[in-house]
């Protein structure tokens, strides 16, 4: 645990407070990753900034074309949101498979992204939703496609003290699926996960985005497979061909959770199943 925890009550207060704090500082969001790391002695920052009290991060709002999900909204609140159910079908499908109910009462999407893990369920789902991530540093804002936030395992494009304030998703009608293979059906870290969003019309895929977890150094947006799927019939044949393609796009490793070859194979299986689970798929 750090020596001090500071809790600003607004973004303005946060930026004002920063200069007086120890240089080795970290943001504390839901704490489910950070406190675990501290308990295990893997995080030695001497100061945490508890951003749980920042009202700016705790909101979800809709404009005409987009849905904004604040980085500090608890996953259980996101799961209960009718706007998320309507406009983020992949995220909505992923959340029941994200950790456990009590951890979802604590964890946030901001923390899930900032942690930079390739297995982050919330992030993979949002990458498939083609989400943007909103960042702020001392009042200066910028927006990135979410997939571009990740540089490698646990490495992100976040600058020192830069804060994830939220995520935006465009309100376009689409179908989605999230299939995760772990050691058990619920509450496990994935060996491989496939997130799929698709805009469909008359049995055809207009646009699809495939994202994968735990099979590359980053939450992977499978650009080639996604592009290939556009314009294809939503059929068993398409699903099988896409499965073959996606296996060439991933670069899994063998680690404590699974083996590289198995993971690669499962990416194909999961994508095929995800495609065939979409409404109107010819089985």
């Amino acid at each position, binding site marked *: 645990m750090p*020596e001090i925890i500071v809790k600003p009550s607004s973004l303005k207060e946060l930026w004002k407070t920063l200069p007086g704090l120890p240089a080795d500082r970290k943001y*504390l969001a839901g704490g489910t990753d950070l*406190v*675990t790391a501290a308990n295990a002695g893997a995080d030695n920052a001497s100061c945490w900034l508890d951003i*749980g009290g920042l009202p700016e991060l705790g909101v979800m709002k809709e404009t005409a074309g987009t849905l904004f999900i604040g980085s500090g909204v608890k996953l259980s609140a996101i799961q209960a949101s009718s706007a998320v159910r309507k406009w983020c079908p992949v995220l909505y499908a992923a959340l029941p498979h994200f950790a*456990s*109910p009590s*951890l979802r009462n604590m964890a946030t999407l901001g923390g899930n992204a900032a942690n930079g893990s390739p297995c982050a369920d919330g992030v993979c789902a949002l990458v498939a939703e083609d989400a943007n991530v909103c960042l702020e540093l001392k009042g200066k804002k910028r927006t990135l496609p979410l997939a571009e936030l990740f540089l490698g395992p646990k490495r992100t494009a976040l600058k020192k003290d830069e804060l994830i304030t939220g995520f935006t998703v465009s309100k376009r009608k689409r179908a989605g699926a999230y299939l995760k293979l772990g050691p058990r059906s*619920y509450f496990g870290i994935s060996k491989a996960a496939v997130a799929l969003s698709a805009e469909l019309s008359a049995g055809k895929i207009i646009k699809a985005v495939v994202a994968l977890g735990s099979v590359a150094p980053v939450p992977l947006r499978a650009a080639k497979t996604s592009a290939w799927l556009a314009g294809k019939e939503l059929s068993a044949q398409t699903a099988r061909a896409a499965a073959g393609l996606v296996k060439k796009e991933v670069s899994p490793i063998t680690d404590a959770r699974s083996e590289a070859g198995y993971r690669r194979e499962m990416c194909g299986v999961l994508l095929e199943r995800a495609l065939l689970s979409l409404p109107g798929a010819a089985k």
Partner: protein
Amino acid sequence: MLIPVSEEKNRYGLLALSCTVNGRRTEREIPSNRSLLEFIREDLGLKGTKEGCGEGECGACLVLVDGKAVNSCLMTASQLQGRKLVTIEGLKGRDGGLHPLQKTFMAEGAVQCGFCTPGLIIASEALLRRKPKATLEDIKLELTGNLCRCTGYEKILSAVEKARGKLHKCRK
């Protein structure tokens, strides 16, 4: 609100924590880096909440914060500021005796070593508050974050099912 940072004694920031614990207003001055679990067990002396894995995997440390089940091993006590904490000691039946879930856990033999029991009862209470008519499937999903290495879960599920219906009647 900024937690006052004190340079006295140990460089630890001291936090004047104000919260509600099992219905009672509680104020303590604690190091701001105290974990919620330490606060509950060491500062408040409420030993019903257990530390199992210390990494959010087992659910033995579950408590209710503002009515929601959370893993107290992964929260800082500072995150409790201004909020309502209920531990297993705070659950009571209408008559002030055992809570219906405690009774059905006993009656169904859902307790063996008992280490996971407080967490399981807290998780079940959170579910039945939210969803008084929870199905068996709801119960199974809600308890995915709670490990029991003795009972094999069947008796636990049966205990929660038996408490369902009795529970919302006794709540104020």
